[in-house]
C-alpha cells in the first residue's frame, strides 16, 4: 500500500519554495542562472499541463503540475490572481531584452504567486493537524 497522507501537498510546497528561493536570489541580484533554469522548468510544466496529449506521457512524472492534486491547487491559486497571467509573467523573466527594473518587478509578482501556491499547499498539508 502506498502511504496515504497529505505529503504530496508538502511536496508541492517544497517545489514552489525552490522557485521562490531562486526568484529571491534574482531580485537580490545574486543569482540569475538558477532562476532562469527553474523558471524554464515551470514554464515547461505549465505548457504540458494544457496539452491533452501529454497527459499520457511519462514526462508528467517530472512535471511540477503532473498529477491531479497539484493541478487542482494551481488552478485554485490562479483564481486568486484573476488579473495575473503567470505564464506571461515568467516568460518576461526569461527575456534579456526587457528592462532590468521591469524584470525585477515581474520577479516580485511571481514571488507572490508562488508564495500563494506554497501557502495553499501548506494549508492542505496541515488540514488534518488542527488540535
Amino acid at each position, binding site marked *: 500500500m502506498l*502511504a496515504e497522507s497529505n*505529503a504530496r501537498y508538502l511536496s508541492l*510546497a517544497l517545489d514552489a*519554495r525552490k522557485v521562490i528561493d531562486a526568484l*529571491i536570489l534574482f531580485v537580490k541580484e545574486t543569482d540569475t542562472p538558477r532562476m532562469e533554469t527553474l523558471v524554464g522548468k515551470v514554464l515547461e510544466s505549465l505548457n504540458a499541463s494544457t496539452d491533452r496529449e501529454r497527459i*499520457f506521457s511519462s514526462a508528467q512524472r517530472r512535471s511540477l503540475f503532473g*498529477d491531479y492534486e497539484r*493541478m487542482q491547487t494551481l488552478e485554485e491559486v490562479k483564481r486568486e490572481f484573476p488579473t495575473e497571467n503567470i505564464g506571461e509573467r515568467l516568460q518576461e523573466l526569461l527575456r534579456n531584452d526587457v528592462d532590468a527594473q521591469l524584470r525585477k518587478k515581474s520577479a516580485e509578482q511571481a514571488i*507572490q504567486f508562488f508564495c500563494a501556491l506554497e501557502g495553499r499547499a501548506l494549508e492542505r498539508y496541515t488540514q488534518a493537524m488542527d488540535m
Partner: protein
Amino acid sequence: MNPEQDAVLHDAASLYRFVDSVCAACNISGEFPSYLESSQHFFRYIQVLGERTQTFLQSVALSLATDSAITFNAERQKLATLRFTWFEIHKYVRPAVNAHTLNIPSPLLLSLLQRFRSIEGLGNRDFVILHTDNVNYFEAHASVRKLTSELRLIIPDAPGFPERFGVIEFPYSQAESVFLNTLIAHEMGHFLFQELTDLAFDKLLRAIGDGIKAAFGTEYPQLTDDDIRWCRDVLLNWAEEIFCDFFALWMVGPCFSLAYIELLDLTVGLYPSAAPSTAYVMSPVFSSHPARLFRLREHVELLKTLGWWQEVLQYKTHYVRLLQKAETTPLTYYIFYSDDPSKQHLLTKTLQAFFQIPNTVQEIVRERMSGIDPGLTEFQLYHESIEQYLQNGVVPSTVIVGNSGSARCLSAVGLGDGPQVRHPTFVAILNTGYKFYLESLPALLKNIDGPDSTSCSDRSAWMKRLETWTMKAIEDSELLRAAQRR
C-alpha cells in the same frame, strides 16, 4: 536587528530546537539495540540533514531582505515549509528506532532482500524498515525521497536521500509473523515501480489512455482535461497496486495471495448475508486501490501464467474457494463508489477502462522479472518432504530427497542418485508452510498429546509454533545454502 528580524529569529530558534529533538531520537550509539545497516544509514542521514538545516537557520534572520516586504515575507514563509517538512521527517524516526533487529522478521527480510537484489540492476538496493501503528504495510520511499531531495534544493549542502534505499513500514506487532509478512514483497514492488524506465512507464500510460478512450468512446472529446487527469491518476494508482501484487506473486509465490486474504479477512466474502455485505470485497473503497476481489482475480491470472495455479487448486482450504470465486465473478459485478460529487459521471467508465489494463501491467512485470525463477519447480520438488517434517514438528531447513523405498532400490542398481541432502529456498518453505498452516493444523494437533484441535486458543498457539518453525527453517536454510556456495 529590527523587531521584525528579531521575531523571525525567535521563530527560527523554535524550529532549530524542534530539529534538535528529532535528531536526538536518531542517536542509536551503543551495542543494544542493534540495527540493520540500512537503518543506521537512515539515522546518520537524518542527523546530517538536521545539522545542515540548523546551519541554515543560524543565518536566516540576518539574511532577510528588510527593504522589501515581498521578499521579507516570502523568506519568512520558508520557515513554515521547513517546519512542516521536519514534521514529516519526524513521522519516520520513532518507527525506525523501534524497528531494531529484535523487532523485525530478520530472516524473512534478508531472504526477500537477497531475492530482490537478484533482479537485474537492483544489486545494491536496500530497505529501511519501520514500524507502523496501522495493521497494514506501506512503502514510504517515494515520499521520503521526494521530500528530502526537494529539501536539498532549499537548504545549502543538505544531503540527498540515498537512491538505493526503499522505506517499508510493517505493523509493529508482527515481528514474529512470517506468513503475513510476505506482504512486504508487495511493498518492495512499489520501490521497483518508482524505478520503472520511461519506456515501461510510457507503455503503461498508453494502455491507460487507450483504456479511457475506449471506455468513454464518443464522450471522450467532451471530457475536460481535469476529468481526464483524474481518471488517469485513479487508473495509475490501481495499476501500480496490481503491478506490486504481480511482483509479489513472482517474488514469493501464492502465499502472497493467501496473506492478503488473511490480513483483510476477505474470506468473509464467501458468506454474503445480503447483497450489500459483498461490497466489502467487491468495490474499491478508495480511489487509491482497486477492488479486493478484482485483485484476487488478477492474482489467479498471474498464478496461471506462472504455473502455480494447478498447485494452489490442490490446497484444501476455503481460501482457494475465495480465489475461485474471484476468478469467476463477472466484471459487471464491480462498482466504483466515490464521495466526490463532481466525479460521479466518470466512475463507471473509469472502472471499465481499468479492466483493459492488467494485461499490460503483467507484460511490464514479466519483462522486469525476466530471468527470475518464480519458485514453482522447487516447491513441487520439496513440498511433500517439507510437509512431512512439519507434521513431525521438525524444522524443514534440510530435507532428504530420493529417500523412498523405490528410489533407494533404483540407486542400489545404479539408477538414480539415491538420497540427497537439500536446503530448500525460502519460497518453497514459505509456500509449503502456508499450505500446511491452512490445511493440516488440525491433523498436527491430533498427533500431539495435550492440545485440543477444536480449541481456538490451542490452535492459535500451534499456528504461532508453526510460524516459528517456518521462520527458523528460512534462517537455517539460507545459512546452509550460503555455506554450500563457499
